[in-house]
């Protein structure tokens, strides 16, 4: 699985790169518009180690952010699944927050939370949680009648049980979404770093953009992709593991 994932990523990356180079040579663009292979390689040698450290730094926050947003999505999803006024209220709130691009909310977040670790984390979690939330809402709102009938008939149904039944029956869908949301957590953290500008690969990308250095951006994208492939591979492995243990205890 994991090696395959990495090979596939490499293929995609180098296909993209080849496309860019084709544009470069096709339109005869100079090195400052699109850097040539030699320049990219040179940039790689110069920056790879530092950027890799940045990527790992970013990823560590992304992981915390993802965990946070999974919790958040579960919480909102569980409350919002109800067809009560409050349930739909929570849902409207959750949707609205998402509609606001983070760049518009950022000033307010910084006013309220300052510019520490917390703002970064919050922004990452906000970007990542919504897709999770949508899936959780979809899953949580749909009764599994053949299983739930007994508990309703006998007055045993509690919301925890309802959540457990629906989650278990949709375990496959949930793990797909959770594993997929890793990429969003990563993207979210990078955006947060980009905005808050203090550390991580998002910060490095901002500087590279500021200096108009596409070579550096290409290196950053490469390292982000590789690290993410590994992380996602691990997540999927964990998903399979959790599933096995939950199904066999």
């Amino acid at each position, binding site marked *: 699985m994991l090696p395959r994932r990495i090979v596939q990523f490499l293929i995609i990356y180098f296909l993209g790169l080849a496309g860019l180079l084709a544009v470069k040579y096709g339109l005869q663009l100079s090195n400052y518009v699109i850097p040539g292979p030699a320049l990219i390689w040179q940039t790689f040698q110069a920056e790879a180690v530092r950027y890799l450290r940045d990527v790992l730094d970013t990823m560590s926050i992304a992981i915390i952010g993802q965990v946070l947003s999974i919790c958040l999505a579960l919480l909102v999803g569980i409350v919002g699944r109800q067809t009560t006024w409050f349930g739909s209220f929570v849902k409207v709130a959750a949707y609205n927050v998402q509609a606001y691009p983070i760049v518009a909310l950022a000033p307010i977040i910084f006013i309220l939370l300052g510019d520490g670790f917390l703002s970064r984390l919050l922004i990452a979690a906000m970007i990542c949680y919504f897709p999770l939330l949508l899936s959780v809402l979809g899953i949580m709102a749909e009764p599994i009648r*053949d*299983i739930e*009938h*007994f508990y309703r*008939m*006998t007055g*045993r149904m509690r919301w925890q049980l309802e959540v*457990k*039944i629906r989650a*278990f*029956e949709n375990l496959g869908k949930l793990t797909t979404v959770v594993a997929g949301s890793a990429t969003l957590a990563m993207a979210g953290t990078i955006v947060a770093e980009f905005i808050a500008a203090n550390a991580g690969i998002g910060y490095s990308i901002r500087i590279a953009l500021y200096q108009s250095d596409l070579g550096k951006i290409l290196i950053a994208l490469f390292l982000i992709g590789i690290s993410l492939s590994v992380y996602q591979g691990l997540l999927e492995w964990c998903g399979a593991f959790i599933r096995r243990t*939950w*199904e066999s*205890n």
Partner: protein
Amino acid sequence: MASSASMQLSCRQATFRYPRTATPVFEDLSFEMPGPGFNALFGPSGVGKTTLARLLTGTSRDFAGEIRMDGIDRVLYTYNTERLPGWSAVGTHLERIVAPGQHDLRDRLVALFDMQPHLASRFAQLSLGQKNRINLIRYLLQDFQMLIMDESLANVDEPTREQIILGIKDLFPDRFFLYISHNVVEVAKFCRHILVLAAKGRARPASVVSGRDHNRDGTPDRERLERAMLEIVNAA
């Protein structure tokens, strides 16, 4: 128990139609069925047994006429395609839903239903008849006065089914059972009263026929059994 003597299920002029359908499932349905006991609900496929059972549980109030249950407060309804949650073995599940002090009853039911060897299995690993059986066990462990069993033993073999029915009659003499089954012999032999819903076009939409109410002791009288069967078939 004293109260159980006065159980009575009655229905007057009940009419029910599914939303957006042309003809009602039943019209002006009336019957009276005394309890307690192991009673049946019988009738051709599509006649409205499941529909009536759902109305009896009181989940839907969308019908005309009156349904009364005297001396019956707690009605449970179980059907044969229910599933147990998949995260634990069926034995663990039983353990979780059994009321305190009912552990003895649980063990007796598990033995009666021949499910001892399968308690360690997940629900998905059971055969169809095994699924039927484990599902029925958990309902029998609940606190109820009336239990409607909608084809709950439809996929169980005859000897096991017979043993189960006799056992239930032994263990729960003061409850009102409404057993939905397509097996006329079984219904005639073991049930006290049989509510027969007739196919469309018959004169009487519903009639209550007396069964042989056979118990573990004593051999059934074949002739009277056949008469009961005939009466049921004619009513359907």
